């Protein structure tokens, strides 16, 4: 991932368009799958990131979403289930000049791969992670996932799932991730903005993308993301602005020591009681409070960048990039106590 600076000064980066980022492989998702729009948002956003195709590596685990790499005309690895963040860590450490993307599903990155995600985030490895959350296992044909709502009836939970869901953003913030955001598959513009911001962030950027699996979990987010519902159900996070939303900005968010963040009628509170959004708060607690709004994804849900702070990017302990050569071996072998026999 390049830093913001590189993006702006990159005069020698050739101009690309969406099609340049599309591979020759037939996309094999189900017709109507939300993954299509995420892929295209990414392919539309990439030309604006100021990077070269050859410097871009996309890593997926296993799952429908994790097939992403095949469709990107970049370098790519389709790895094994859950391990994409770890594979990407190796890529990123081997060559810090690369833009590394990780794409995986809620099962891939939060069930089997939860630990790698956690550690990539806390180390602040230079990569952009898209967690494509459809709240279901798509590729294995419909079991509940770690983000499925409690009580969900699926093939593996005919009596309703007992697990209470993880909130991906809470987990990321619990690991002190430096960039945390949410977007959704119904809004290409929003996705593009978030993807660009995430990519520009130095270190690990975590993005939850709400995605509809129309085959096994259709309408999962309809109450939030359907055009008609957005106004009242999506809380846009805008840096430096009080958090308001709803018809005529009639709703807003305040901090409340008892309940964390709560949604209120703006009419009921004074302007300066509203929480002013600040991604850059060093302390993750406010972002955490926001991440707990709408735990079941059926109440007003914040979208946008929750947190964006600076922390040193992993890999700064310098390591020689070119081995000095045979003399080094000789010096090493002769280090310490030696003796001669003649």
């Amino acid at each position: 991932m390049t830093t913001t600076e590189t993006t702006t000064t990159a005069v020698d980066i050739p101009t690309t368009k969406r099609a340049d980022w599309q591979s020759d492989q037939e996309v094999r998702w189900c017709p109507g799958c939300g993954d299509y729009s995420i892929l295209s948002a990414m392919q539309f956003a990439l030309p604006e990131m100021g990077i070269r195709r050859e410097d871009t590596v996309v890593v997926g685990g296993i799952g429908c979403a994790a097939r992403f790499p095949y469709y990107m005309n970049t370098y790519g690895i389709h790895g094994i289930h859950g391990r994409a963040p770890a594979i990407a860590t190796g890529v990123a450490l081997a060559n810090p000049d690369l833009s590394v993307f990780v794409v995986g599903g809620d099962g891939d990155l939060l069930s089997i791969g939860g630990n790698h995600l956690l550690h990539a985030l806390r180390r602040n490895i230079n990569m952009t992670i898209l967690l494509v959350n459809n709240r279901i296992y798509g590729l294995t044909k419909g079991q509940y996932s770690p983000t499925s709502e409690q009580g969900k009836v699926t093939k593996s939970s005919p009596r309703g799932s007992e697990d209470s869901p993880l909130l991906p953003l809470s987990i990321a913030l619990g690991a002190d991730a430096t960039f945390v955001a949410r977007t959704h598959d119904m809004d290409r513009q929003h996705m593009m903005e978030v993807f660009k911001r995430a990519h520009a962030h130095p270190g690990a950027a975590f993005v939850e993308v709400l995605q509809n699996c129309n085959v096994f979990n259709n309408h999962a987010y309809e109450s939030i993301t359907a055009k008609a519902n957005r106004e009242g159900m999506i809380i846009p996070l805008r840096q430096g602005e009080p958090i308001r939303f709803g018809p005529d900005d009639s709703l807003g968010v305040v901090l409340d020591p008892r309940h964390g963040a709560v949604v209120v009628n703006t009419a009921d509170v004074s302007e300066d009681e509203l929480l002013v959004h600040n991604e850059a708060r060093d302390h993750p607690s406010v972002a955490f409070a926001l991440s707990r709004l709408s735990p079941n994804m059926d109440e007003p849900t914040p979208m946008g960048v929750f947190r964006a702070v600076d922390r040193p990017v992993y890999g700064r302990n310098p390591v020689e990039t070119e081995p000095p050569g045979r003399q080094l071996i000789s010096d090493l072998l002769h280090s310490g106590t030696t003796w001669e026999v003649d």
Partner: protein
Amino acid sequence: MSTAKSSSVKPSEEIENVVIRLAGDSGDGMQLTGNQFTAVSALAGNDLATLPDFPAEIRAPAGTMAGVSAFQVHISSEDISHPGDKADVLVAMNPAALRSELSKVHSDATLIINTDEFGERELEKAGYDSNPLDDDSLEGYYVIDVPMTSLTVTAVKELGAKRRDAERSKNFFALGLLCWMYSRNPDDVKDWIDERFASDDLIRRSNVTAFDVGHAFGETTEQISITHVVESADHPPGTYRNVNGNTALAWGMIAATQLSGLQSFLGSYPITPASDILHELSKHPAAAFRTFQAEDEIAAVTSAIGASFAGDLAWTTTSGPGMALKGEAMGLAVSLELPLVIVNIQRGGPSTGLPTKTEQSDLFQAMYGRHGESPMPVIAARRPADCFECAIEAAQVALRYRTPVILLSDGYLGNSSEPWRIPDVDDLPDLSVEFATESNHENPDGSMDFWPYLRDEATLARPWAIPGTPGLEHRIGGIEKQDGTGDISYDAVNHQLMTDLRAEKIARIADDLPPPEYTGDLDAEVLLVGWGSTWGTIASAVERLRKEGILVAHLHLRYINPLPKEVGEILRSHRSVIVPELNMGQLSRMLRAEFLVDAQPLNKVAGLPFTVGEIEAAVRKAVHGDDGGSK
């Protein structure tokens, strides 16, 4: 070569070799003492082999059998390659050490006993009903009573050390005494103490003092009337150093890095007895070696796969349990056909098993511990210094054939040390690789594409095109791929083809291999076939047997997959084939399956190397049809 100067006034006798065992509490510093005695013996030009033997606990309750830590060293004026079956001399720092180690010494061994620790409480902790120094249970041994603790404390307290701290130096007393007994150069030890404890002057001086007191004790005590000299061994000329297997392996990894011209990446998670490789490598960023302590073994190997994709020479190091966790990812590496070296320092299994003990029971796992048909080369190191070469060779195979390679060592090799003639770096092979830089496939319309699975005709290796290279963007994954293009393919014929190609690629490595090490009487009836760390013991047994006139040959395998082409013929040319292994018969089964030869297993799973005697006995039995009067 510096010669040992004996400052003794007592007479001295020349001996060919001696096996010394040091045993004390985990906190007594026996490993340090043993290693230092080894180092001065190496400087004295002896050949030597060591066997560290310590418990899995950091420090079990003081004075108990569970807490005993031992170190055995075999020093010789002849070429030797094993740590000695039984010790000639035991230094026992406390009753528990005496009790637990007595079975590991000859019945007429010299016992150097720290009598200060033989109080009632200590005896009880060790499970003694009566004091062995007082009853006749040590009859036959030559017992030397040494009040090590009190002599040390008295001398060291004068420097201003507290009693407890003073006591800590008693291992240097033991070292001083041993150096005197075996005419080692005291200055070599003192130089080392000065360097090692430079940061704390009181400790430094305490240790030097304790060493001197121990040395002086030897000169003055009436219990020892003679010193021994082990002459320097007749080593070929060169510059020598002492090295243990794990350090040699780490250095081999660094050497491979330099020889390849690539940056190296190690993904690793700490585990005994492999952690020291991670420790050593993390000291060498200037060698273009990046170490990454991952969150677990799966992240260790998968990060290495990612680094390999990005163009690094990638490694992962672990031991058995960690190896088990890497199985799925190894399958990915096989499918991706990327270079990667996976190192297993084997330990006692199954499960957590015996973490600090040695075993060779992960060979099957190396061969077969993955789902599907996923063949990988398997290489095994035979002696500490050989780990250096094997690391280079593993990297060479990985790079040349674009394949993950498994390199097997074990706890014994990893921790034990031997003198090593430092190789001339100019003799080391060139491992440089060429990354792909251009498209390689011409389409019917004349346009060019990059096909990631278009293979080299000779090696069947696929091109290595790394991110950052314009025009070669490509996607690869663990799903079956179309030959050539690397696109996803579920086609039946293609799957068979790819399966065959992956197998053939590994099989072809045999074309490049030198003949395996095959020595002894080539017309012998009995052939011993070994792999890995049993080499020294088998070689010693063969040498002894041949001196006795018993015909025996020795084939030792570095490559277990693929097997060198000569193996079948060699096996068939001996009537009786014995395969000694520290497992329940893994290589022997492989040889039987491959060559339909009645290779007989000789197995031991006891956390310890074979003794030379065990190998000898098996051969005698094969020759004479019974134990044949084995001595």
